[in-house]
Protein backbone atom coordinates (compact mmCIF):
# COMPACT_ATOMS: atom_id res chain seq x y z
CA UNK A 1 0.00 0.00 0.00
CA UNK A 2 1.51 3.24 -0.97
CA UNK A 3 1.44 6.49 0.81
CA UNK A 4 -0.21 8.14 -2.12
CA UNK A 5 -3.30 5.99 -1.84
CA UNK A 6 -3.48 6.65 1.88
CA UNK A 7 -3.23 10.36 1.34
CA UNK A 8 -5.98 10.34 -1.24
CA UNK A 9 -8.34 8.37 0.93
CA UNK A 10 -7.47 10.45 3.98
CA UNK A 11 -8.13 13.63 2.07
CA UNK A 12 -11.46 12.27 1.00
CA UNK A 13 -12.32 11.38 4.59
CA UNK A 14 -11.39 14.80 5.93
CA UNK A 15 -13.18 16.59 3.13
CA UNK A 16 -16.35 14.62 3.62
CA UNK A 17 -16.19 15.17 7.38
CA UNK A 18 -15.85 18.90 6.83
CA UNK A 19 -18.71 18.73 4.41
CA UNK A 20 -20.91 17.15 7.03
CA UNK A 21 -20.12 19.85 9.52
CA UNK A 22 -20.19 22.83 7.21
CA UNK A 23 -23.05 22.17 4.82
CA UNK A 24 -26.39 23.52 5.92
CA UNK A 25 -28.44 20.83 4.26
CA UNK A 26 -28.89 17.76 6.40
CA UNK A 27 -29.39 15.43 3.48
CA UNK A 28 -26.12 16.56 2.01
CA UNK A 29 -24.57 16.05 5.39
CA UNK A 30 -25.83 12.49 5.51
CA UNK A 31 -24.39 11.77 2.10
CA UNK A 32 -21.06 13.25 3.16
CA UNK A 33 -21.10 10.97 6.16
CA UNK A 34 -21.68 7.99 3.88
CA UNK A 35 -18.65 9.00 1.88
CA UNK A 36 -16.66 9.36 5.06
CA UNK A 37 -17.71 5.96 6.32
CA UNK A 38 -16.83 4.46 2.98
CA UNK A 39 -13.36 5.98 2.95
CA UNK A 40 -12.74 4.75 6.47
CA UNK A 41 -13.83 1.31 5.30
CA UNK A 42 -11.20 1.58 2.61
CA UNK A 43 -8.64 2.44 5.26
CA UNK A 44 -9.69 -0.66 7.20
CA UNK A 45 -8.80 -2.64 4.09
CA UNK A 46 -5.39 -1.02 3.96
CA UNK A 47 -4.91 -1.96 7.59
CA UNK A 48 -5.76 -5.57 6.89
CA UNK A 49 -9.14 -5.61 8.54
CA UNK A 50 -11.24 -7.05 5.75
CA UNK A 51 -14.05 -8.20 8.00
CA UNK A 52 -14.48 -4.76 9.54
CA UNK A 53 -14.40 -3.10 6.15
CA UNK A 54 -17.27 -5.28 5.05
CA UNK A 55 -19.25 -4.68 8.24
CA UNK A 56 -18.61 -0.97 7.97
CA UNK A 57 -20.12 -0.84 4.53
CA UNK A 58 -23.00 -3.17 5.23
CA UNK A 59 -24.04 -2.07 8.71
CA UNK A 60 -22.85 1.47 8.99
CA UNK A 61 -23.00 2.98 5.57
CA UNK A 62 -25.86 0.69 4.66
CA UNK A 63 -28.27 0.21 7.50
CA UNK A 64 -27.52 3.01 9.90
CA UNK A 65 -27.24 5.73 7.32
CA UNK A 66 -30.45 4.64 5.64
CA UNK A 67 -32.14 5.15 8.98
CA UNK A 68 -30.64 8.62 9.18
CA UNK A 69 -31.67 9.62 5.71
CA UNK A 70 -35.14 8.30 6.34
CA UNK A 71 -35.45 10.33 9.52
CA UNK A 72 -34.19 13.45 7.79
CA UNK A 73 -36.68 13.03 4.95
CA UNK A 74 -39.55 12.60 7.39
CA UNK A 75 -38.66 15.36 9.79
CA UNK A 76 -37.30 18.21 7.68
CA UNK A 77 -38.46 18.44 4.16
CA UNK A 78 -35.66 20.33 2.55
CA UNK A 79 -34.82 23.36 4.66
CA UNK A 80 -33.30 23.66 8.06
CA UNK A 81 -31.14 25.85 10.26
CA UNK A 82 -32.31 28.95 8.53
CA UNK A 83 -32.94 32.17 10.34
CA UNK A 84 -30.77 34.27 12.55
CA UNK A 85 -28.65 32.44 15.09
CA UNK A 86 -28.65 34.38 18.33
CA UNK A 87 -25.89 32.19 19.69
CA UNK A 88 -23.64 32.41 16.68
CA UNK A 89 -20.81 33.78 18.78
CA UNK A 90 -20.86 30.80 21.08
CA UNK A 91 -21.03 28.39 18.16
CA UNK A 92 -18.08 29.92 16.40
CA UNK A 93 -16.08 29.66 19.60
CA UNK A 94 -16.09 25.93 18.93
CA UNK A 95 -13.75 26.38 15.99
CA UNK A 96 -10.70 27.62 17.92
CA UNK A 97 -11.36 25.28 20.83
CA UNK A 98 -11.85 22.35 18.44
CA UNK A 99 -8.64 23.29 16.66
CA UNK A 100 -6.86 23.33 20.00
CA UNK A 101 -8.17 19.83 20.72
CA UNK A 102 -6.95 18.63 17.33
CA UNK A 103 -3.59 20.18 18.03
CA UNK A 104 -3.31 18.46 21.39
CA UNK A 105 -4.26 15.09 19.93
CA UNK A 106 -1.83 15.46 17.06
CA UNK A 107 0.93 16.40 19.46
CA UNK A 108 0.27 13.23 21.40
CA UNK A 109 0.26 11.16 18.25
CA UNK A 110 3.58 12.59 17.26
CA UNK A 111 5.09 11.98 20.65
CA UNK A 112 3.37 8.74 21.48
CA UNK A 113 2.92 6.67 18.37
CA UNK A 114 6.47 6.04 17.41
CA UNK A 115 7.36 3.57 14.74
CA UNK A 116 7.05 0.20 16.32
CA UNK A 117 8.43 -2.73 14.45
CA UNK A 118 5.32 -4.33 13.10
CA UNK A 119 4.58 -7.63 14.74
CA UNK A 120 3.35 -10.58 12.82
CA UNK A 121 0.58 -9.52 10.53
CA UNK A 122 -2.68 -9.26 12.39
CA UNK A 123 -5.23 -11.68 11.04
CA UNK A 124 -8.15 -9.58 9.96
CA UNK A 125 -10.30 -12.24 8.38
CA UNK A 126 -13.67 -13.40 9.54
CA UNK A 127 -12.25 -16.47 11.20
CA UNK A 128 -9.78 -14.66 13.41
CA UNK A 129 -12.30 -12.13 14.57
CA UNK A 130 -14.95 -14.75 15.12
CA UNK A 131 -12.57 -16.90 17.12
CA UNK A 132 -11.92 -14.07 19.55
CA UNK A 133 -15.53 -13.00 19.58
CA UNK A 134 -16.79 -16.36 20.75
CA UNK A 135 -14.04 -17.12 23.20
CA UNK A 136 -12.52 -14.25 25.06
CA UNK A 137 -15.18 -11.72 24.11
CA UNK A 138 -18.16 -14.00 24.71
CA UNK A 139 -19.52 -11.89 27.55
CA UNK A 140 -19.44 -8.57 25.69
CA UNK A 141 -20.92 -10.32 22.69
CA UNK A 142 -23.87 -11.52 24.72
CA UNK A 143 -24.08 -8.14 26.33
CA UNK A 144 -24.50 -6.60 22.90
CA UNK A 145 -27.65 -8.59 22.39
CA UNK A 146 -29.09 -7.27 25.64
CA UNK A 147 -28.11 -3.77 24.58
CA UNK A 148 -29.92 -4.10 21.29
CA UNK A 149 -32.96 -5.54 23.02
CA UNK A 150 -33.02 -2.66 25.47
CA UNK A 151 -32.69 -0.18 22.64
CA UNK A 152 -35.56 -1.84 20.83
CA UNK A 153 -37.78 -1.71 23.89
CA UNK A 154 -36.88 1.92 24.41
CA UNK A 155 -37.66 2.85 20.83
CA UNK A 156 -40.98 1.04 21.05
CA UNK A 157 -41.84 2.92 24.19
CA UNK A 158 -41.08 6.28 22.60
CA UNK A 159 -42.40 5.72 19.12
CA UNK A 160 -45.69 4.03 19.90
CA UNK A 161 -48.67 6.29 19.33
CA UNK A 162 -50.69 4.66 22.12
CA UNK A 163 -50.48 6.53 25.41
Amino acid at each position, binding site marked *: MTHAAFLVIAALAVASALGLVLRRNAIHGALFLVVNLGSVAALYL*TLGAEFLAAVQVIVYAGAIMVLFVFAIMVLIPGKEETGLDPRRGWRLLALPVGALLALQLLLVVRAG*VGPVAPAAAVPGGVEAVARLLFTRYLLPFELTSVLLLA*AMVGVLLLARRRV
Partner: protein
Amino acid sequence: MVAESWYVALSAVLFSIGVVGVVVRRNPLVMFMSIELMLNAANLAFVAFGRRAGNADGQIAVFFVMAVAAAEVAVGLAIIVTVFRLRRRLSVDDLSLMRW
Protein backbone atom coordinates in the same frame (compact mmCIF):
# COMPACT_ATOMS: atom_id res chain seq x y z
CA MET B 1 3.50 0.41 4.50
CA VAL B 2 1.99 3.53 5.94
CA ALA B 3 2.89 3.96 9.58
CA GLU B 4 0.13 3.71 12.14
CA SER B 5 0.81 7.20 13.36
CA TRP B 6 -0.61 8.55 10.12
CA TYR B 7 -3.81 6.68 10.64
CA VAL B 8 -4.06 7.85 14.22
CA ALA B 9 -3.36 11.41 13.16
CA LEU B 10 -6.16 11.17 10.63
CA SER B 11 -8.45 9.75 13.29
CA ALA B 12 -7.57 12.65 15.58
CA VAL B 13 -8.47 15.13 12.88
CA LEU B 14 -11.75 13.39 12.11
CA PHE B 15 -12.55 13.22 15.80
CA SER B 16 -11.96 16.93 16.24
CA ILE B 17 -14.09 17.76 13.23
CA GLY B 18 -16.85 15.68 14.77
CA VAL B 19 -16.48 17.51 18.05
CA VAL B 20 -16.75 20.86 16.34
CA GLY B 21 -19.76 19.61 14.42
CA VAL B 22 -21.61 18.75 17.63
CA VAL B 23 -21.10 22.23 18.96
CA VAL B 24 -21.68 24.38 15.88
CA ARG B 25 -24.80 22.75 14.48
CA ARG B 26 -28.34 23.38 15.65
CA ASN B 27 -30.04 20.47 13.96
CA PRO B 28 -30.00 17.52 16.36
CA LEU B 29 -29.82 15.12 13.41
CA VAL B 30 -26.61 16.69 12.20
CA MET B 31 -25.23 16.88 15.72
CA PHE B 32 -25.99 13.22 16.00
CA MET B 33 -24.24 12.48 12.73
CA SER B 34 -21.23 14.36 14.02
CA ILE B 35 -21.22 12.08 17.03
CA GLU B 36 -21.22 9.14 14.62
CA LEU B 37 -18.21 10.75 13.04
CA MET B 38 -16.46 10.83 16.41
CA LEU B 39 -17.21 7.16 17.01
CA ASN B 40 -15.95 6.38 13.55
CA ALA B 41 -12.70 8.21 14.27
CA ALA B 42 -12.27 6.19 17.42
CA ASN B 43 -12.82 3.03 15.43
CA LEU B 44 -10.11 4.00 13.00
CA ALA B 45 -7.74 4.53 15.92
CA PHE B 46 -8.67 1.13 17.33
CA VAL B 47 -7.84 -0.67 14.11
CA ALA B 48 -4.62 1.24 13.61
CA PHE B 49 -3.49 0.59 17.16
CA GLY B 50 -4.52 -3.03 16.73
CA ARG B 51 -2.11 -3.46 13.89
CA ARG B 52 0.58 -1.78 15.90
CA ALA B 53 -0.01 -4.01 18.91
CA GLY B 54 -0.21 -7.05 16.73
CA ASN B 55 -3.51 -8.35 18.03
CA ALA B 56 -7.09 -8.39 16.87
CA ASP B 57 -8.55 -6.91 20.03
CA GLY B 58 -8.82 -3.53 18.37
CA GLN B 59 -10.91 -4.97 15.59
CA ILE B 60 -13.17 -6.66 18.13
CA ALA B 61 -13.62 -3.34 19.88
CA VAL B 62 -14.68 -1.76 16.60
CA PHE B 63 -17.19 -4.50 16.10
CA PHE B 64 -18.75 -3.74 19.48
CA VAL B 65 -18.70 -0.02 18.85
CA MET B 66 -20.66 -0.58 15.67
CA ALA B 67 -23.28 -2.54 17.57
CA VAL B 68 -23.48 0.20 20.15
CA ALA B 69 -23.73 2.81 17.43
CA ALA B 70 -26.64 0.97 15.89
CA ALA B 71 -28.46 0.88 19.21
CA GLU B 72 -27.63 4.50 19.86
CA VAL B 73 -28.95 5.57 16.47
CA ALA B 74 -32.21 3.77 17.04
CA VAL B 75 -32.76 5.35 20.42
CA GLY B 76 -31.51 8.76 19.34
CA LEU B 77 -33.75 8.96 16.32
CA ALA B 78 -36.72 7.90 18.41
CA ILE B 79 -36.02 10.67 20.88
CA ILE B 80 -35.62 13.21 18.11
CA VAL B 81 -38.92 12.09 16.57
CA THR B 82 -40.65 12.46 19.94
CA VAL B 83 -39.40 15.99 20.32
CA PHE B 84 -40.39 16.82 16.76
CA ARG B 85 -43.91 15.51 17.33
CA LEU B 86 -44.35 17.96 20.21
CA ARG B 87 -42.70 21.01 18.72
CA ARG B 88 -42.87 20.65 14.96
CA ARG B 89 -39.49 22.30 14.79
CA LEU B 90 -36.09 20.81 14.91
CA SER B 91 -33.48 22.95 16.56
CA VAL B 92 -31.76 22.25 19.86
CA ASP B 93 -32.01 25.93 20.66
CA ASP B 94 -35.73 25.48 21.16
CA LEU B 95 -34.88 23.27 24.07
CA SER B 96 -34.31 25.85 26.74
CA LEU B 97 -37.42 25.43 28.81
CA MET B 98 -35.31 24.38 31.74
CA ARG B 99 -32.39 26.53 32.70
CA TRP B 100 -30.70 28.36 35.57
